[in-house]
């Protein structure tokens, strides 16, 4: 504020205090991140550790915040400004702009730029017919074989979530190899019970009776892989194998952040968040792919079903309500996807 005594600028004490407090919090966060990085380098696993800040997140209207972020990033920039904005984004989040299919001036908004396609040949597809490729650019968080009955995936050390909660209770999730062995040794045939009428192909995938028809065929195990996409990564999703997508399930959920800190502090992160699950069959049996949204990247677009809209405003969100499900061509083979085909994209907001 101006004054006649010559003070041309005055910052109120409260503002100074707020800036100092935010600076201290940021410094503390950087210190914590450095400690985590050092621990990881020493081979120490991150452990689940709920905290008050994570609890506070559940009171925030994260879906509304996400949609507002989407609105902000949809604002079109003047052409002269676009390269500056996208270069700044690329510097901040380590994106490779040389891979973008179009000149930067042609991306009207940050949201448009975020789901950019890549130049031809930037992502060669592994041509080995026996391999399963990564559907996205990202960081491998977890992978392995699901061996226990009621298969669980570890979120971090000390906390796991069930695969059926992630994919849906009506999922056609087959039995693990261990369960198959138990069945062969005289255990109860769970897949042939009340659900017989519901899944003709669940039986064909899981039942050892069917497998016994061809004794040369190998025993099937159930595997998983979790890949995290950072904000600077290419955000389109591709098909990992040649497969037939039979069912799509949309879980309208929360939109917690999905970063490392959230993973350590929020229970059931992947099971609570909004997500789209595709289920189907590939040459080796069952295949499912779950795309999970976050606060900044809240909506998931499916190119195989353009009418699907996620992260919609709703008056009241009941997390117990069942997912919205669509069966693709119930009498046919569903939607056939080739390895490397574009399936969908994560959108901002």
């Amino acid at each position, binding site marked *: 504020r101006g004054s006649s005594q010559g003070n041309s600028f005055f910052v109120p004490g409260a503002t100074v205090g707020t800036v100092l407090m935010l600076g201290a919090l940021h410094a503390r966060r950087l210190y914590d991140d450095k400690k985590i990085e050092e621990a*990881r380098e020493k081979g120490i696993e991150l452990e689940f550790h709920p905290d008050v800040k994570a609890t506070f997140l559940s009171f925030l209207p994260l879906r509304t915040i996400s949609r507002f972020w989407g609105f902000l990033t949809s604002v079109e920039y003047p052409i002269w400004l676009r390269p500056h904005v996208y270069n700044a984004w690329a510097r901040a989040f380590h994106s490779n702009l040389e891979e973008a299919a179009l000149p930067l001036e042609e991306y009207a908004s940050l949201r448009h730029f975020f789901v950019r396609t890549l130049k031809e040949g930037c*992502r*060669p*597809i*592994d041509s*080995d017919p026996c*391999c*399963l*490729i*990564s*559907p*996205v*650019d*990202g*960081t*491998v*968080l*977890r*992978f*392995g*074989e*699901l061996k226990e009955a009621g298969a669980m995936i570890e979120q971090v050390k000390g906390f796991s979530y069930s*695969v059926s909660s992630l994919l849906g209770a009506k999922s056609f*999730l*087959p039995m693990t*190899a261990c369960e198959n062995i138990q069945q062969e040794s005289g255990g109860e045939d769970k897949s042939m019970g009340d659900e017989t009428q519901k899944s003709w192909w669940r039986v064909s995938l899981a039942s050892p009776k069917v497998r016994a028809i061809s*004794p*040369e065929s*190998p*025993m*099937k*195990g*159930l*595997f*998983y*892989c*979790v*890949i*995290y*996409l950072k904000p600077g990564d*290419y*955000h389109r*999703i*591709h098909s*990992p*194998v040649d497969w037939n997508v039979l069912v799509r399930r949309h879980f309208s959920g929360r939109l917690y952040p*999905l970063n490392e800190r959230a993973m350590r502090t929020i229970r059931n992160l*992947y099971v609570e968040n909004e997500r789209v699950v595709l289920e189907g069959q590939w040459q*080796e*049996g*069952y*295949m*499912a*792919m*779950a*795309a*999970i949204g*976050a606060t900044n990247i809240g909506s998931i677009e499916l190119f195989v079903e353009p009418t699907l809209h996620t992260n919609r405003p709703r008056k009241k969100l009941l997390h117990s309500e069942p997912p919205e499900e669509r069966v693709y061509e119930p009498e046919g083979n569903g939607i056939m996807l080739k390895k*490397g085909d574009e399936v969908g994209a*994560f959108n901002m907001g």
Partner: protein
Amino acid sequence: STVVLVFQAPVSSANERMPSDFKFCIERGDRIRMGEALGR
């Protein structure tokens, strides 16, 4: 955002001359790009 894949694959074969176990070819923390093999 995160993607989770869940899939069936062979774990053992009755035919010992043609082993067909599925093996991941990645490590935890690896950066991977679309189109690169996760496993064979």
